[in-house]
């Protein structure tokens, strides 16, 4: 659990965070989204004290971070950044082992954990390679693995996928979401990409000019924007397209009906289902759940939805 | 603590330092070799600061240490030694032993063929030759040409004056460089500044002109001790003075030639000399 209470921060004359309060629950995937310069990265960096707050306080699991030993605090919190920051003179395995080493885990435990993460993030065969021999996507996978290595209960991620191509980004987002759900990790994630925010976040906080304009589930921001600024930012007409990316086939199918064509899974998003319809040239497709046909998804329902 | 023996870094300094060092060791006094330490400014300061215990210094230099360049006493060998010794003992608790008879002062040497042709023996003869329109071309260091103790003093005393085009000034040049210029007749040079004990004089065929008016101060080398060290080893005074006593201009010139012309090592030349004088077995 992370709590921000009346946090203020200024750099010189520029107010970066202006009296901000927020509570991120245990096991929650919370995304801070906003344009660059809105203060979201600074807010994230107050949690592991890379930035000191001028006023107010930041608490992790109920304890004010200002009272904690700074190295102990940081070793207990995962941290991944856009530029990755891998150590160029260390192998992939050594990079991943950074925090467990700092925490003086037994060597056998470190090796087991590194192997586990290499499998989890699909880095097989790369353990002994040096960072400069990896692609950008592979480097960021190592960065995420390094952030997760010591099984931190909280992970901070500052636009970790910002520099990657869309395909690589999507695949990494999928891996991260799955890992987070399995481990119950609390993640505070910063991005300026609305699609990424809505795709990943259990809750999303929209930051503008150092303050939180609206906090809520993705659909709440889409359906009930707090004001014009939020409406503009979530994207006007494109808001409906984003909604398709948030909702699943399961919520919108006609149960018990049948259809021709390649089936889609109940867990996929409506966006993917629409893509499948366009590819197959059909206006309805069968829906499967656990390999069983359970109903059909119909194009008119997607168009009519949310009216 | 052993006695630290220093010396200047020049040719003669290296030899005299070795003489002191080897005599001390022969007398059973533990001694450390710090010879060829550096230029006068460094060596003198080291002695004053108690970083050295003894080194050979020239009596005339005391005039500069105590800013008495115009004192006539420094133009008489006996008075120069007495004055240097008393001044340094009173001011710095330094003891000057009896110096060698050799007087190593600045002088002018001319090519022997020219000296013969023009019948030159003393600086008076040089003045006559120069004033009679002789083609003197003298090589010297900037210090020699400008210092009140050198050329200007010769000129005013003997009554001659060299024009700018009769001087070849080698800035920072040592006598070895100016002697070489005269010996090889570089740019028509036929006279050179010299030190009277220079080892290069004989072999390069220069005639050193005498200084009958004693324009130059007397520069006789003597071991200079810190008083407390000499008091600890009073027995070294006699053998050291015995080692310096035979050092006349001719002897010193010959010994300097061995290091300078033959390139022999100073310690070997010193050992040979002391052995020949029966001061070393």
């Amino acid at each position: 659990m992370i709590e921000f209470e009346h946090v203020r921060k200024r750099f010189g004359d520029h107010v970066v965070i202006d009296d901000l309060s927020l509570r991120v629950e245990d096991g929650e995937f919370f995304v801070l989204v906003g344009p660059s310069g809105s203060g979201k990265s600074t807010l994230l960096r107050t949690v592991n004290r890379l930035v000191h707050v001028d006023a107010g306080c930041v608490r992790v699991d109920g304890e004010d971070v200002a009272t904690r030993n700074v190295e102990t605090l940081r070793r207990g919190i995962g941290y991944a950044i856009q530029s990755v920051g891998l150590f160029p003179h260390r192998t992939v395995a050594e990079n991943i082992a950074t925090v467990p080493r700092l925490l003086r885990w037994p060597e056998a435990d470190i090796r087991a954990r590194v192997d586990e993460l290499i499998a989890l993030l699909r880095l097989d065969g790369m353990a002994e390679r040096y960072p400069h021999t990896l692609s950008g996507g592979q480097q960021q996978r190592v960065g995420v693995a390094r952030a997760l290595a010591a099984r931190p209960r909280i992970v901070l991620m500052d636009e970790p996928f910002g520099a990657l191509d869309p395909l690589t980004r999507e695949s990494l987002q999928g891996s991260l979401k799955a890992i987070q759900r399995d481990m119950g990790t609390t993640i505070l994630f910063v991005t300026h990409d609305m699609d990424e925010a809505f795709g990943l976040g259990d809750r999303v906080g929209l930051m503008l000019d150092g303050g939180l304009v609206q906090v809520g589930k993705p659909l709440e921001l889409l359906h009930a924007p707090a004001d014009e600024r939020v409406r503009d930012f979530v994207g006007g007409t494109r808001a409906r397209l984003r909604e398709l990316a948030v909702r699943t086939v399961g919520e919108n199918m006609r149960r018990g009906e049948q259809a021709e064509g390649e089936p889609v899974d109940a867990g996929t998003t409506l966006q993917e289902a629409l893509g499948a319809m366009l590819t197959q040239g059909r206006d309805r497709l069968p829906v499967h759940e656990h390999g069983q046909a359970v109903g059909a998804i119909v194009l008119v329902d997607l168009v009519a939805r949310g009216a | 603590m052993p006695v630290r023996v220093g010396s200047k870094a020049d040719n003669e300094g290296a030899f005299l330092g070795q003489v002191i060092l080897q005599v001390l060791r022969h007398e059973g006094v533990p001694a450390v070799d710090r010879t060829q330490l550096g230029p006068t400014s460094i060596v003198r300061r080291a002695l004053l600061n108690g970083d050295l215990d003894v080194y050979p210094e020239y009596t005339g230099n005391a005039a500069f240490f105590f800013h008495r360049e115009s004192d006539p006493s420094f133009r008489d060998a006996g008075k120069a030694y007495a004055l240097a010794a008393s001044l340094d003992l009173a001011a710095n608790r330094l003891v000057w032993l009896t110096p060698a008879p050799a007087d190593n002062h600045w002088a002018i040497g001319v090519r022997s063929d020219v000296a013969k042709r023009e019948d030159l023996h003393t600086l008076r003869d040089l003045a006559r030759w120069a004033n009679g329109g002789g083609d003197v071309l003298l090589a010297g260091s900037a210090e020699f040409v400008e210092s009140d103790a050198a050329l200007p003093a010769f000129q005013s005393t003997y009554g001659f004056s060299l024009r700018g085009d009769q001087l070849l000034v080698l800035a920072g040049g040592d006598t070895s460089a100016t002697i070489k210029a005269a010996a090889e007749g570089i740019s028509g040079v036929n006279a050179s500044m010299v030190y009277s004990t220079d080892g290069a004089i004989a072999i390069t065929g220069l005639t050193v002109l005498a200084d009958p008016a004693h324009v130059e101060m007397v520069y006789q080398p003597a071991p200079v001790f810190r008083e407390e060290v000499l008091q600890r080893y009073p027995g070294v005074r006699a053998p050291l003075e015995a080692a310096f006593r035979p050092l006349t201009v001719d002897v010193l010139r010959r010994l300097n030639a061995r290091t300078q012309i033959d390139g022999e090592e100073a310690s070997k030349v010193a050992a040979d000399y002391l052995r020949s004088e029966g001061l070393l077995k």
Partner: protein
Amino acid sequence: MIRRPNGMALPVLVLSIVGVIAACLPAFLRIAPNRLLTGEAFNPHAWPVLGGWLLVVVCSSVAFPGRRVLLLAIAWAGVVGLPLLAGADAHRILMHATPYTRVQAGAGFWLGWLAAALLLLDHLRGMHKAAQAGAWLAALAAVTLAFVAGAFDSLSLVREWQAQRAPFTAATGEHLRLAAITLVLALLIGAPLGWWAWRTRRGDGVLVGILAFLQTVPSLALFALLIAPFAWLAHAWPALGALGFGGTGAAPAVFALLLYALLPVVRYTVAGLDAVPGDAREAARGLGMSRAQLLWRVQLPLGWPVLLAGLRIVAVQTIGLAAVAALIGAGGLGRFVFLGIGQGAMDMVMLGTLAIIVMALAVDLLFQGLLALTERRA
């Protein structure tokens, strides 16, 4: 590198022309009546040596099979043969000369030998490491063997060395020791200072200002200023004095050399720390490394190659500068330079200077090896 159409590097042509000029110079050797006077020029082998160099000129402009091997052979023969030739000439001359006569290596010899050595260096560059080492070691072995056999004993430079054997060996040790102690202290003091300057971003301010000012103080003036405080220290702590610490000798010499070495060490430390990627540093801190862990695990390994490259320059500079240590009784090879200048004996000056150059080159080679090792590891 500019390459001619026929594939020979331009340096070969340049070096061969230098060689031709060297062969034509009148002074392959100089025969002096004694140690002080300048000798008369002597060049008995102008035609055969010129022929060798003209062959190199031809090789550099005309392509034919076996050209590389021929060039290699000529260069190697030059490196080994020219000294042997000079030594044999000197021996012959001295047999019928006065005992004071000196035979000195002249400008023609030095220039020609340098051209041959550079030609060999240039020619070996593209070849196998083993071939390179083999060619140089063979040349070194041949020259050393000839030296031990007395082939160069009649050359003035070698006679200087023979007259000063024991002091020369001692001075070489002193010189190395002075440079090594200075370098270690410069690293121990300069690296933390550099780290501090880098961290506080005062790199261009007070510290560098002071160090840059110290660089401009003439060494002799610095020595004169150091005698009193160092003598006082030795007096106040007799234990220091017993270690040889005092107003003259190695202590003030090392101190002065250290002052000259600190500025580059500080600068290269800052450059080394700047070479560490900012994101790696940010990640290291965010993951919970302490300042010391950041330094030892990230900044030092990543900045080390830059610092080492800097140390290489400082080492060579210090070996050169250590010559002035002779001015304050610390010995070293500079004593031959200053004594030689005082005696007007240029061969003695040359003896000290050559030894310093050889030492600097050897240390440079050592650091190159260290650098190559570091780079292979990274």
